[in-house]
């Protein structure tokens, strides 16, 4: 299960969606808007997506994880305006053992960041705005 949402994400609902009597380990990741980025104060983010390609890519990543490990996976990405602390991305992976739950959850969040066509525009504490370009940001982390 993978989807985009204009509404607040509920990682507990994702975890419930992947739970099952044989799956004793559930790992989740929740990415929230931070109050700083690359040394500057952030007050708001706006996420936009290439919708059909983004949904298809999230679905493909979830399917890849479920083929690679014996897990069930759910993932969602928020779109629209988000304030500091709001959840932007949520992943839940459940398997019989913790090893595969952790591995699949980590895989999915890495691949989401790498492959899903989503963009974010940051509004800074000083009133300026900018598109985030991770290819430029890495050096300043």
């Amino acid at each position, binding site marked *: 299960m993978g989807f985009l949402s204009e509404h607040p994400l509920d990682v507990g609902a994702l975890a419930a969606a992947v739970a099952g009597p044989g799956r004793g380990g559930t790992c989740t990741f929740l*990415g929230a808007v931070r109050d700083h980025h690359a040394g500057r104060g952030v007050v708001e983010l706006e*996420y*936009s*997506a*290439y919708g*059909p*390609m*983004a949904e*298809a890519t999230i679905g493909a990543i979830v399917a890849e994880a479920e083929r690679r490990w014996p897990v069930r996976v759910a993932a969602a*990405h928020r779109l629209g305006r988000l304030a500091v602390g709001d959840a*932007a*991305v949520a992943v839940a992976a459940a398997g019989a053992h913790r090893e595969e739950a952790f591995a699949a959850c980590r895989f999915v*969040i890495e691949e*989401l*960041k*790498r*492959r*899903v*066509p*989503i*963009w*974010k*525009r940051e509004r800074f504490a000083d009133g300026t705005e900018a*598109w*985030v*370009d*991770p*290819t*430029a940001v890495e050096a300043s982390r």
Partner: protein
Amino acid sequence: MDTPARATVLLFARYAELAGADRVEVPIGPGTDVRRVLQGLRDELPGAAALPEAPLCAINHQQARLSDAVRPGDIVAFLPPLAGG
């Protein structure tokens, strides 16, 4: 006379801002590839000159290469560096 064959170009995020448009219909002919579509944008939209030489691109919602052929009715997309998560 037939109307000329066309494809749809989608631009996102910073690229849409630079070009001043997020959706453009472009004429295509035999042998048109993604690179030629990009060149056509640069010629038509002054702001599109600022797009990079080799942006990420997609055809019909799937990642593509600049050398891939574009057919009538295709949806070609140019994608700024991805920043989800």
